[in-house]
């Protein structure tokens, strides 16, 4: 099919953000096939709504917003407790490791497997997961993340803070389970 040069240029530019979109979709759906479906649908929708994109603004954020909105359309009907985190109180991994006598604390981070970190991120409820994806993985500013998610900056900050508490809790549990940290202060981080 013969496409107009403007449409082709727009599609080309949009495709430069494919990896970001795919990664985001993969983390949100936790399934490569579903991620591809979601991303493909997002691109088709993006082209259909090309006129609503303002040239010169953040296309990556615009595309991500389309993708995550589609994700949430599909996710609708899920129970609220699956979507968001209750306030489970402060959890500071650094303090926790110090309490357990795991010194130096940073060594514990070096010993965590990448797959464990990914799993901890994927275990976050999607409302919190998407903030971590935008701010920590893709390096969005709070302002861009807020715009992408359609929430105030304060909401981005509180979701992010809570997500990080939960993430640190999961990583601590992994560290204990995998023997990187021994509970109740049995001392040093084991050296290889």
């Amino acid at each position: 099919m013969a496409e107009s040069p403007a449409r082709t240029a727009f599609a080309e530019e949009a495709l430069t953000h494919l990896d970001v979109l795919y990664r985001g979709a993969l983390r949100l759906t936790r399934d490569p096939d579903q991620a591809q479906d979601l991303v493909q649908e997002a691109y088709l929708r993006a082209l259909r709504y090309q006129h609503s994109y303002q040239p010169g603004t953040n296309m990556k954020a615009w595309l991500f917003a389309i993708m995550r909105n589609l994700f949430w359309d599909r996710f609708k009907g899920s129970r609220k407790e699956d979507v968001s985190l209750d306030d489970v109180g402060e959890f500071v991994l650094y303090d926790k490791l110090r309490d357990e006598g795991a010194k130096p604390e940073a060594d514990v981070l070096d010993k965590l497997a990448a797959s464990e970190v990914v799993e901890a991120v994927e275990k976050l409820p999607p409302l919190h997961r998407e903030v971590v994806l935008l701010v920590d993985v893709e390096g969005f500013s709070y302002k861009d993340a807020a715009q992408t998610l359609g929430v105030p900056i304060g909401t981005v900050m509180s979701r992010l803070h809570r997500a990080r508490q939960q993430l640190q809790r999961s990583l601590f549990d992994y560290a204990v389970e995998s023997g990187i940290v021994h509970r109740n202060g049995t001392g040093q981080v084991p050296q290889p």
Partner: protein
Amino acid sequence: MNCNDCVEKFDRYVDRELNNTEVLELKLHLEGCPPCADQYEFQASLKRLVKVCCDKDTAPAAFREKLRQILL
């Protein structure tokens, strides 16, 4: 700035969301306070770790090609 005020700003510091004045105040405190500096370094490492572990995935080549066929 006391240690509580300092720790409370760590999220925004690792995310580069503090203004210049706040950054200067925080740096000044970190220089004189090894415990806070150590904890800050930990928070920064944690953020790096999440990024490094999660941004390895790229769209499969066949999928990229399929999209090009559909979109271009």
